């Protein structure tokens, strides 16, 4: 049609503003009749007036004082609501404490994944402190984090769906079933560990979230096992699962030994006494439960 360059002064601005958002819109309305223009009381097919009117109303919305007031009121209401939600949410889920567990970076994640699969060469397993507070995971590879367990859980659910799909047993509800099942096992494991820690009266600084993080590290091994089984068949599944089970076992023992046992026993010297023996048994059983769960949660995926 005719693009008269200077129909009015408004036309230059609306066209520039709307160029990126509706670049096809102009051509589209050229191909068929622009019936949306009728709603604004414009002539149909008059596509030059269309963007002009939209730009005109857009401009007027920002300059009108009434709508400025409404905008300001709405934003203050939104920030008030957000404050209230934050305050109430903080009572149930400690958001500020959670932020510590997600302060990771790529180097840490890489090193930690390497540790989870091959913990045999690592010498120093202590968490370094900085004036009584543990250092963020970004700076210390021994600190527990929640990023790897969370991502591992989600990846496990997806890989389980993939494995079930290759056996033609997949349906979308099964994803939810797998996810809730694994989550329930995780919660039960954390509760069992908490109960046994209480019974043995271990004075540790292990928080619940720490235990959640340690229990979540086994998802990495499970994913490796299932993926190897999918790619190379059952022998590869068993081999890689065996390797990852041994690795997680050693990892858990070396990490928990420093936290649960007394200083003398942690250094390897044999300390007599029922309390230390109980704690040693507890460490062993927590570490031994990991391979059991790893096998339990993945064997039905590889057939």
């Amino acid at each position: 049609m005719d693009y008269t360059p200077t129909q009015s002064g408004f036309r230059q601005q609306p066209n520039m503003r709307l160029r990126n958002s509706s670049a096809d819109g102009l051509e589209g309305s050229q191909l068929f009749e622009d019936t949306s223009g009728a709603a604004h009381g414009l002539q149909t097919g008059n596509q030059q007036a269309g963007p002009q009117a939209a730009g005109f109303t857009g401009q007027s919305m920002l300059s009108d004082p009434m709508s400025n007031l409404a905008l300001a009121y709405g934003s203050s209401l939104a920030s008030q609501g957000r404050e209230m939600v934050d305050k109430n949410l903080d009572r149930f889920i400690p958001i500020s404490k959670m932020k510590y567990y997600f302060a990771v970076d790529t180097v840490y994640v890489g090193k930690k994944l390497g540790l989870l699969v091959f913990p045999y060469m690592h010498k120093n397993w202590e968490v370094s402190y900085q004036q009584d507070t543990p250092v963020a995971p970004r700076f210390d590879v021994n600190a527990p984090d929640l990023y790897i367990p969370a991502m591992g859980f989600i990846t496990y659910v997806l890989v389980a769906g993939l494995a079930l799909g290759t056996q033609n047993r997949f349906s979308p509800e099964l994803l939810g079933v797998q996810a809730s099942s694994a989550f329930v096992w995780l919660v039960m494991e954390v509760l069992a560990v908490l109960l046994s820690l209480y019974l043995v009266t271990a004075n540790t600084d292990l928080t619940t979230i720490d235990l959640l993080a340690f229990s979540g590290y086994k998802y990495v091994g499970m994913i490796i096992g299932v993926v190897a089984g999918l790619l190379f068949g059952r022998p590869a599944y068993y081999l890689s699962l065996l390797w990852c089970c041994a690795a997680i076992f050693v990892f858990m023992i070396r990490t928990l030994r420093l936290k649960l046992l007394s200083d003398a026993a942690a250094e390897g010297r044999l300390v007599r006494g029922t309390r230390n023996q109980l704690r040693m048994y507890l460490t062993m059983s927590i570490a031994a439960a990991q391979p059991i769960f790893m096998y339990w949660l993945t064997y039905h995926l590889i057939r």
Partner: protein
Amino acid sequence: MAFTLYSLIQTAILCINAIAVLHEERFLSKFGFGVEQGVGGFGDDPGVKAQVLTLIRSVRTVMRVPLIIVNSASIVLLLLFG
């Protein structure tokens, strides 16, 4: 085994009910958990048995009223929805 969150809640309610119905005189005294044998020492090594005893007692004290509420609610819901 397909677990759901609902079965987790069911398990929790059943376990807490089980702890709450343990009668002290008739049952627990036979195992040496009786009322007259209090927590012996205040040393830093209470031992597993004393911890279990404390746990049972505290669960029974704390959860008595909420258990009544939760049990009645679940009875009503199961009657209505099967």
